[in-house]
């Protein structure tokens, strides 16, 4: 059993509308499954709630990135203009802070944007070209017009036959086993 299970990533059911998908997800979670994931060609409203996803870390990372960008930016300029090689430029004070605002601002944005994107990718563990779900033949539709729910084998409650049956109960077409080879 264990050995057998180790080759299975989960069991997957296909749906044709967002509504069915959300309904299915709710049912599966009611059935007590926790390691459940859904796949959709576009972000489906309410899906996250149905899956019970918590608030994610991206905004916080972005904030930190922005702050460091801004602080670093101003520090750089102040250091260049007033500390490392102070020079009299047009009789302006060494710390011409008003003139330093634009660059500070731009670097804030840059820092925030970079950390937002790379933070998102990192949290999503992307790039990840290989993934068990791609073993499912009909999964190509996941990027065009079909919606999938996958109950993962990692779920303590997982039992292949039961999981498959549960998905059929919520009117999934093509319930397939997702192998992990």
């Amino acid at each position, binding site marked *: 059993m264990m050995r057998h299970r180790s080759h299975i990533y989960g069991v997957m059911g296909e749906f044709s509308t967002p509504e069915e998908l959300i309904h299915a997800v709710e049912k599966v979670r009611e059935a007590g499954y926790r390691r459940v994931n859904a796949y959709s060609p576009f972000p489906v409203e309410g899906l996250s709630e149905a899956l019970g996803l918590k608030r994610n870390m991206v905004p916080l990372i972005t904030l930190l990135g922005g702050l460091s960008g801004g602080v670093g930016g101003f520090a750089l300029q102040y250091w260049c203009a007033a500390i490392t090689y102070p*020079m*009299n*430029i*047009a*009789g*302006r*004070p*060494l710390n011409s802070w*008003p003139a330093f605002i634009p660059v500070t601002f731009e670097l804030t944005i840059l820092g925030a944007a970079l950390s937002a994107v790379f933070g998102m990718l990192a949290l999503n563990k992307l790039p990840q070209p290989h993934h068990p779900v791609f073993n499912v033949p009909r999964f190509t539709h996941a990027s065009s017009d079909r919606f999938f729910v996958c109950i993962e084998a990692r779920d303590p409650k997982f039992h292949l036959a039961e999981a498959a049956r549960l998905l059929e109960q919520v009117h999934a077409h093509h319930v397939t086993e997702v192998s992990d080879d």
Partner: protein
Amino acid sequence: MRENEHHEHKANQHDHHDPAEDLSLPERPLDLAEVRANLQSKSGKQYWRTLEELSEDPNFTEMLHREFPRQAPSEWDESVDRRDFLKLMAASLAFAGLSGCGRTPEQHIVPYVKQPDGLVLGKPQYYATAMPFGADAIGLLVESHEGRPTKIEGNPDHPSSLGATNVFAQASILNLYDPDRAQTATQYGEIRTWSQFLDAAQSLAAAFKATQGEGFRILTGTITSPTLAAQIQSLLTVYPLAKWHQWEPAVSDGAREGAKLAFGNYVNTVYRPENAEVILSLDSDFLGSGPGHIRYAREFSHRRKLDQFAEDRRIGDEMNRLYVVEPTPSVTGASADHRLPLRASEIQLFARALASKLGLGGSPALPPNAEKFLNAVAKNLQRFPRNSLVIAGEHQPAEVHALVHAINAALGNVGTTLYYTGPVEAHPVNHIESLRQLCADIEANKVDTLLILGVNPVYTAPHDFDFASKIGFNEKTKSKKVRTTIHVSSHFDETSELCDWHVAESHYLETWGDARCFDGTVSVVQPLIAPLYHTHSHREVLAAFSDQPGVTDYDALRDRLKAANPSADFEKFWRKTLHDGVVAGSPFAPINVSPKFDPASLPAVKVGSPNEIEFIFRPDPCVYDGRFANNGWLQELPKPVTKLTWDNAALVSPKTAEQLDLAHNVAWRGGEHGKIYSNVVDISLSNSKVTAAAWILPGQADGVVVLPLGYGRKRAGYTGTNKGFNAYVVRTSDALWAATASSNAVKRTGEDYPLACTQYHFNMEGRQILATGTLEEYRKNPNFANKHAEAPPPELSLYKGEKEYPYEKMQNRWAMAIDLNSCNGCNACVIACQSENNIAVVGKDQVMRGREMHWIRIDRYYKAESPTNDPSTYNESLDNPETFFQPVPCQQCENAPCEQVCPVGATVHSAEGLNDMTYNRCVGTRYCSNNCPYKVRRFNFLRFQDWETPQFKLLRNPEVTVRSRGVMEKCTYCVQRISNARIEAEKLNQPIADGAIVTACEQACPTQAIVFGNANDKNSRVAKLREQQRNYSILAELNARPRTTYLAAVRNPNPELEKT
């Protein structure tokens, strides 16, 4: 970026024995040794062009058509030939990648083998010498780096210089290094060695011995050198039948003949303008040209400084007053308090009328519109007996000069404001007659051998003499009128082409010699460098015909001085003379002469009727009579009044232009600053014709067309050939200075010609740029210059008036003050700056694109209320507008707008308040120039510097970085001089004394209009000037707080003429 050559490179110019050594610099385009080998081997008739060509150096052909010709790089070309293009493209890709990083190649140190005594590597040396020029000689101190003369400055101990110079003296250093100079002797175009010439000369001499020199003629220009004159005289005594002719194309016989007319013999006049309360100039440009003009300008300016330097005040602090009557605007006319434009021929009427007003008899006939002026002038002159001065113009006829002598005598000025001496010229003659006689003799086959020294008669002789035919080979008769013709000149020019022999002439910085200046003082001409090529002096060539050809210039000079000054210790005397540059006690003593002639006796003068047009010939303010045509600095120098470069033009007054239907077209490209299209006219005069571009010049007398001489050279060298039009073509011996013709002598061809003009827009649009006022206004409110614009209070700053830079507390606070009352726009500072700071010449095309590189420019403004600001639309305010000049170097603003916008900090402030420009940091965004309110920054849009020509490597000032393509440059107050002075002072632990630093422009200025110094030193001259109330800064309201400030121009008009 590769900038100036290392001193090690220079170090290999050692004691200049072998000319080849002088050029043995790295990457030289041609090998002179090879050349010389070639020359010796050459034989058989072939037309001789240049040394390089003979060297058959493959690079040379490329050099001939290279895109960056020396002196005037015209790197621009929109059409690029394909091969060249692809080659460059390939290069550029590599270039774009690699440049910036990468190691510099190996360099070598080439020390002397035996170092000359007294020479310290890296330390410039100064030698006193003098530049002979016409009937004058300008005393000079020449800066030399390891044996290379690099900069020419005035000699303070010299009467005609007093430490100042003029454009010609400043630019003459470029002539020394002119790559187009003739480099050896030639016969029929084939290279000849000096010894070969000597043989030829000696065989001729032998022949003369038999004939007493019959048919031997010598043609020279004006000669003031006693040694050279002695040499000629000795020849004339050996060959009694030989004759000496003189021809100086740009100097009139009027002065000479006038003196003769007045006093019965040739007399030289020396003026003392500083003693004159009232000066009347009758078409005399005594401040801008002619013998002694540098000194005259200085003395004149002393009386215009108002309360500047107490010790400089001469007779009271009364400002003097200058009246000028002239046909065409000169720098003297621009400095006048009252100026009256009259035709050149009417000047004589005016002089006669003035004479009769002063009770000297004669006809009171007067040109219309001059009555009022005359009365005022006459009254004013009479108010100051003994302290007035009347000066007749060089180009006025003898009668005017005679009248003026009489008038000055009548006013009792002789002895105070002028005095007479014996002639400065070694052998004064009437030049035109002298030349006329020579031509006649040639026609009469009386001339067998003609030796031409320096002058270029084929180009300069009146066209009715047709000098070319006199000496040229006649194809029809297959014969020559003169058997042997020998020409000695620095360049292989129009005359050389037609002469059998040509001997390359040495530059005055290459030879020993002497010359008299305007007051008779003898100056020693001392060489700074051994001849760069196989060249020789006039005296050496003359000596070749004597019985001791071997005598060197040095010995000849010493012998003559010994003879003239029998002093106990000659060596001491000699050293002192060399040190001072002048022979002590040599100035002429004043002589007592009184005019013995009656103005009434003068024959009636014929004046062209008003509907006729009067054509007058004048030497060009930049290339003079054409001898400087190949000098890139002078060609690119904006002419004082017209601001034209690289061309001469037929100057006409706005009204005459309207009558003749001439106009300018401010081209779409270039426009006010650069290219102006002007109508081309055909001028048919004295059965000859010339085609010229017309230029409309406010303030010129109506009905007068000025034809500047010196352009249209057929054979001047790379830079000078075929620039402008040749006015000599329409100049005849009977009308050397003025010719009249009916107005249809001027015909529009319908074509337009682009002229390069650096300033076309002539008014200030009501801005506080050049402050002017009258003496009355000044007395009422000495602070009038500042009433328009004050700097805004610092509290307005976003930075709450933070003051982080306590300039006042610094030891030095560099500043410059420019007295607009003294500046007469003579341009000396512009060339001095160019020479000192290695400023490139860019060529006409680039000037027309508004890319000239002068660090200091002289703006010329008119007080004229023309609505269009375009002289080519007539408006009576342009008939005789007041003219003002304003030199504009970098203003060294304390809140420099340029610095704030530089992204890389290439231009920042030094602690002493200089606006530093660090070329090697500059990436060339040109933002600083955009943001400069005074537009004093100059950008290397292309590679303007000539890196190839070896001569220019010798020319450059090693103290200043040579800027390459793509960087901004500008005036830095000659920071190299500041640094050196500071270093010397710091070694002694002393503060820098006032006057220890003299900027190049200040040094050259004849009127001391420019004063540089430390504003924190209360006793410095500049500090005193800045305290004056006349002191103001341009556009103070911009709050840039310039360090360069100006003293407002104050004119002293005669109330009588003011009213109405």
